């Protein structure tokens, strides 16, 4: 008669709570990005004057490769923790964070060039107005991810990270995969289609 959490038809375990929550967050964030992508696509070619994308944009190859690679490394890290190998997990998460930081550095360099060399700011034209918010929104999500990864590394180093936390680190890795997925879209829309 009394309730046992896991022993009934249709039961889902404790872990699924976190997964459902992360999926919900990803849907909401995806919807947020979608609107900036729509704005970017709608305004493609509509700037009244330059600089125009084809003049100033170059595909950020290094950053992109780093970011995609970091998806693999974060998966290794999450899996290592589930296996109980805390040190290896910490190592992979650290590599992930470094790769993410390289990506951000690339974005920073690109923006510096755009602003100071090419004269493109958010207020210059429609291209500037839509480019910086879209790429910037993505970069801000990378930063949030780096904060979470950084915390995990610190916990791994101090010994606070345990196998019991494997599910949570898995959720961090899901978030990171989402951020990568968004980059695929941004790359395509801004650097391939929009140019």
């Amino acid at each position, binding site marked *: 008669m*009394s309730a046992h959490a896991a022993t009934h038809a*249709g039961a889902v375990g404790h872990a699924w709570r976190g997964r459902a929550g992360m999926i919900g967050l990803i849907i909401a*964030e995806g919807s947020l990005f979608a609107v900036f992508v729509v704005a970017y696509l709608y*305004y493609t070619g509509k700037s009244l004057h330059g600089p125009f994308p084809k003049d100033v944009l170059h595909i950020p190859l290094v950053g992109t490769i780093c970011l995609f690679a970091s998806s693999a490394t974060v998966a290794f890290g999450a899996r290592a923790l589930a296996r109980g190998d805390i040190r290896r997990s910490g190592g992979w998460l650290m590599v992930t964070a470094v790769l993410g930081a390289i990506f951000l550095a690339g974005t920073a360099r690109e923006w510096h060039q755009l602003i100071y060399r090419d004269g493109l700011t*958010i207020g210059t*034209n429609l291209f500037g107005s839509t480019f910086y918010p879209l790429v910037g929104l993505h970069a801000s999500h990378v930063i949030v991810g780096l904060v979470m990864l950084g915390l995990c590394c610190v916990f791994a180093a101090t010994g606070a990270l345990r196998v019991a936390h494997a599910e949570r680190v898995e959720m961090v890795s899901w978030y990171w995969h989402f951020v990568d997925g968004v980059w695929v879209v941004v790359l395509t829309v801004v650097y391939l289609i929009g140019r």
Partner: protein
Amino acid sequence: MSVHAPPLVTAEAMTRHTWLEHAHEWVVTVDHKRLGIMYIVSGLVFFVIAGLEASLMRLQLAWPGLHIVPPETFNRLFTMHGTSMVFLVGIPIVFGFGNYLVPLMIGARDLAFPRLNAFGFWIFLFAGLLLHFSFIGGEGLYGSGSAPAVGWFAYAPLTSRAFTPGNATDYWNLAIFLAGVGTIGTAINIVATTLTMRGPGMTLGRMPIFVWTMLTVSAMTLFILPPLSAAQIMLILDRFLGAHFFDTQAGGSAVMWQHFFWFFGHPEVYVLMVPGFGFVSEIIPVFSRKVIFGYATLVAATVSIGGVALGTWAHHMFAVGMGSTLNTFFAMSTMLIAVPTGMKIFNWLATMYGGRIRFQTPMLFCCAFLFQFLCAGLTGIMLSVAPFDWQLTDSYFVVAHFHFVLIGGLFFAAFGAIYYWFPKATGRMLSERLGRWHCWLFVIGFNLTFLTMHVQGLLGMPRRIYTYPADRGWEMWNLVTTLGVPLQIAATLVFVVNILVSLRRGKPAGADPWDAWTLEWATTSPPPSYNFETLPVVTSRRPLWDLKHPDDPDGPHE
């Protein structure tokens, strides 16, 4: 084991609390029941404020040429009224009930993320206070600060710095943005809870209809609220960093704001209304003494409303010049959504048919709801006919329509819900006598105001005007419309008195005062903090019916 066993007595419960300790408990709580009550109470407080704003407007419009408030103040009143009612009244009340009832109805201990839940409430409350602070804060340029005056949907480019200097619009933007963040958090919470924390035997197909409505609107929220947040971020960038998202002078598009806003805005009104359907779907069966007719189709209708609602938004833009193809498409999608929406009325009628209807206050409100929502849906179908909408969009006909949906529909259902579940939350019954006064005063006042209001629209009166010429033939209708206001104010006062008096002296309710069938009635009133001492076995959609009628359980019939 009896479902009416008294709660475990804890040491904590034995100590006497000072009111400061009591308040502290409420401030730090992560209990879904307390947060739910706080959402609903806050929503009702903002309801009174927004209602006073509307009353002031109706006073000014009662006759042409009145100067009760200056023009810009009137514009602030309708902006604050609309914004408050949607974001600070409707959403908190809907999600407040969701908060309170969902775990109880599915046999869970709390929501999936209790701390996120608390965060959602407090950021909503902060947002509401921030928005209302604008009345006294922010001078802005040319004395044009103070509360926002751009309308609750804040069309661009009126909201740009060029046309609205000062910070009034920024109060609107930031407050609603923050409220949206809280709502998204709560939506994630409800989806995760419903999908992963149902009690033993509680399959998706056995959840009460109300839980289905909360699941649907929470899922919708995940898709539709971020686009509003995105548009608001774009507006902030335009106003503060010189971006040109909605800057028509730089080639930007005013219509794009409308698309983004209404992509959120239309499904939003379904997020507000559909839980109202949930309330009614719980109350009508109990007061008709019959199981809900057609549970599966009701659920299918609910979910399909959630889906189709995402594709109807541009019926708010029929007059913007989108072209015949788009006008036709959105007319079609809007008409389509009328089918699952209208069907529900048949489900409810079929539930009452052959029953033994008891007309206590919750049921009275549901009866009023039925007729009023029927009107609302039918005027909605009229408006979906795009050429008809070309005459009547942005007129008082539309204002009448959506007040029929939101007050005649959602609010009446919510009042019914409050009378129905107040005993569960507080252990005391609300007064039936005061409840009847509340209901009738409101029905008469509401219809006097909003039924009449359709006429001004048909006679060509546009909305959002602080006064009107005397030779348009609108005076008498406006006067009658205003006459309904004192009745609604009186009804609200009766309601508030009822709550305050019944909290102290209401009849003790017991666990199951209405002889109902869903899980929340299987625990004490109010429930203990852990919700259930023991959960009944769930083998059907009405676990308590099965317990009360062991000879004729629901299971084989479903």
